[in-house]
């Protein structure tokens, strides 16, 4: 509880009573800050802390702020000249800022006190607590409908949908197999031929398919390929005899 700080009972040479009262007396100049043993206040608070099991961080924070304010007031009184020279803040500014903060805090403390009293007065007011009941949802109302419209809508669903055109996917080039047959036929007549010469006059796409067919034949060992230099004509020859036989046996 933060009230632990204010209710802290002090037993000092100059003052005896709660910490709260001490602060008030200092601020009203009814007590000389110079006479207050601040170390003793700190000791009292630490003793109070050790007496309780739990450390209340809020209370500690509040205590630090209040003791720091007290220390500042005391220091300013004890060393007025040095204080004026050392501080970057003008004493008036510092005092005003301190007073403003303390006053603001005191007002809120008073307000908190009023709230506490009010709570005690209202302790015997019992009422129902709960979330607000849900508001009814506006009902959706349909105008009178014509049943033939429903039938028409269903009839539309019953019709088969138009066929999807696949025309754009049609093959626009001959199959690889066509070129496989063509090259095999050429090789049956001749032992060697020139690829470029064979496909001359065909379209670009047809030439590409023909090249794939050639690679197929090479892969299966039906042809041997040779090229003297990059972009030179590709020379296609029959491979050695036994390999053809092997292939023939395998494919049979």
């Amino acid at each position: 509880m933060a009230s632990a700080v204010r209710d802290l009972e002090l037993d000092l040479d100059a003052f005896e009573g709660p910490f709260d009262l001490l602060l008030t007396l200092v601020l009203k100049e009814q007590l000389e800050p110079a006479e207050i043993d601040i170390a003793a206040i700190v000791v009292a608070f630490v003793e109070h802390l050790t007496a309780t099991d739990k450390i209340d961080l809020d209370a500690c924070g509040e205590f630090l702020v209040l003791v720091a304010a007290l220390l500042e007031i005391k220091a300013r009184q004890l060393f007025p000249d040095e204080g004026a020279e050392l501080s970057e803040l003008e004493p008036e500014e510092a005092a005003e800022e301190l007073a403003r903060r303390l006053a603001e805090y005191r007002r809120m403390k008073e307000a908190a006190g009023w709230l506490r009293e009010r709570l005690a007065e209202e302790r015997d007011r019992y009422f129902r607590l709960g979330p607000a009941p849900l508001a009814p949802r506006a009902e959706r109302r349909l105008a009178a409908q014509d049943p033939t419209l429903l039938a028409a809508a269903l009839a539309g669903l019953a019709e088969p949908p138009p066929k999807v055109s696949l025309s754009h996917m049609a093959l626009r080039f001959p199959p690889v197999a066509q070129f496989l047959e063509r090259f095999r036929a050429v090789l049956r007549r001749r032992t060697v031929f020139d690829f470029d010469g064979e496909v001359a006059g065909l379209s670009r796409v047809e030439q590409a398919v023909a090249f794939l067919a050639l690679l197929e034949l090479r892969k299966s060992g039906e042809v041997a390929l040779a090229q003297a230099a990059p972009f030179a004509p590709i020379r296609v020859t029959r491979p050695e005899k036994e390999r053809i036989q092997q292939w023939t046996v395998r494919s049979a």
Partner: protein
Amino acid sequence: MDRPLRLISRDSIAESPIDSLARTIEGLLVVASQPLTVEQLADATEDDVERIETALGLLAERYREGRSGIVLERAAGGYAFRAAREAAEACSRLFERPVERGLSQAALETLAIVAYTGPVSRPEIARIRGVAADSTVASLVERGLIAEAGREAGPGGAVRYRATPLFERVFGLDSLAELPRLDDLGADAEELRERLLEVAGARAS
């Protein structure tokens, strides 16, 4: 003709229509878990505001301390039923008051700051109290006594908080305007400031 003779039929009892309206309002207030405003009652009963207020006057007379175990009260800008104070002791044996149970001094101070200066952000609360306010604010939000109310201006502005209607209800206020003014305390602060300035002035010279 052996039917019993009825001298007065039910329908012939003269009844002011305001009584009927009062009964409807009574029903609405029993169902509500939060105070209902005159406007809400007018909407629900499809009646006009003046007649609602007249009917509420009738109900306030009927449901008052000493006459009824249920009391009609003005709270948080509306009207609500609560238990009569004489029932409080019995209520306390059966019901908890979780909203205000164990409100610490720090929580009450934070609550005061939000109620008086809200909408106000956490950094602002911390500046006034001189202590970080995060956990206190979170606990007050959880209790439903304060709620988020937008953000401070500018990008990345801190969330601001305000007191809720539940706060008003718990503290028995019709609105935040019923909080006591802190003017007299302000005068005290002014006096305090004068004294501090005198001291500072004396030391500086």
